[in-house]
């Protein structure tokens, strides 16, 4: 048996619906079935459909996870942007030598309180998470925020790439399933017809 043939022979009970994915996350690639007729002759329609359904659900699960991650990023990005705008404002005011200015703070839903901001120090506290806040100069804070912004955008980009990839596999799987199903209907009919004439 040649190398080529060895690869094509699956382990017992295994239907070659997917192959190793060469993407960053190692998501298996859904294989396009070239010849449905011989494929289900070899692996039986019922078993094939079952295996396909299972894989299909797995792909859909991965898709929903990615979509959730993307949603988070789409909330996070504007928040970072908002913070950047705010620090920029403080910086501008500071450079214009406005040491105090009045603001209205939201202290609870629909309740606002007046507050006078003193920005003569030229510093701002950035919340780093994990109950840690660090005082930094405006420029340092901006650099950090810009970096976060950049990272989040990159992450969004890669999530989009993954989603595109998953979508491809899902669509391929859907089409495969439809084709196997249809071929099975045709086969069953043919069989029925043969029996009837026999």
């Amino acid at each position: 048996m040649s190398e080529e043939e060895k690869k094509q022979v699956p382990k017992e009970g295994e239907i070659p619906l997917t192959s190793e994915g060469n993407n960053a996350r190692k998501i298996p690639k859904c294989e396009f079935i070239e010849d449905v007729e011989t494929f289900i002759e070899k692996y039986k329609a019922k078993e094939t459909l079952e295996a396909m359904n299972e894989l299909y659900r797995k792909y859909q699960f991965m898709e929903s996870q990615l979509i959730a991650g993307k949603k988070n990023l789409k909330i996070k990005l504007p928040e970072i942007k908002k913070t950047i705008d705010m620090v920029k404002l403080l910086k501008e005011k500071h450079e214009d030598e406005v040491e105090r200015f009045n603001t209205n703070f939201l202290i609870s839903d629909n309740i606002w309180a007046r507050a006078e901001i003193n920005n003569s120090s030229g510093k701002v506290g950035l919340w780093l998470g994990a109950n840690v806040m660090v005082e930094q100069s405006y420029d340092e804070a901006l650099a950090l925020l810009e970096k976060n912004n950049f990272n989040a955008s990159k992450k969004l980009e890669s999530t989009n790439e993954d989603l595109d990839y998953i979508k491809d596999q899902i669509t391929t799987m859907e089409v495969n399933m439809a084709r196997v199903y249809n071929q099975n209907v045709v086969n069953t009919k043919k069989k029925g017809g043969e029996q009837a004439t026999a």
Partner: protein
Amino acid sequence: MSVTIDSKKDVTVEREDQEKINKFSRLNMKCTELIEDKKQMQQDLDALEDAELAIEEAFGEDGTLKVFMGEIMFDCYEDEAEIHHMRMMEEKKEKMDEVQDQIDDVEKEMKTLKAELYAKFGKAINLEKE
């Protein structure tokens, strides 16, 4: 969208067709998202236009306005508010044009693919939005 292949008619799906279907499906996903983004931007832009009117109306009262930014409102003079407002408008408009361009590109590509796929599969394939 759903891609349903009903092959009662005898059309075989080639690998090449599969790739086209995949691409179409992906573009469709992107298109839906872009349209949603645009809707959101339009809303923001409408709000900004309302704000423009509000700034004009308040003109010459006591000279100060409150501008909402991040999580606070801060007091500022009319001219400051106007500059801030203009900056935001420009930013939004620019982004919206960008999204519109993307939508146009995606729709154009989808149209070509749709024509090709319908030409081959006819009624056996459904590429319409549900």
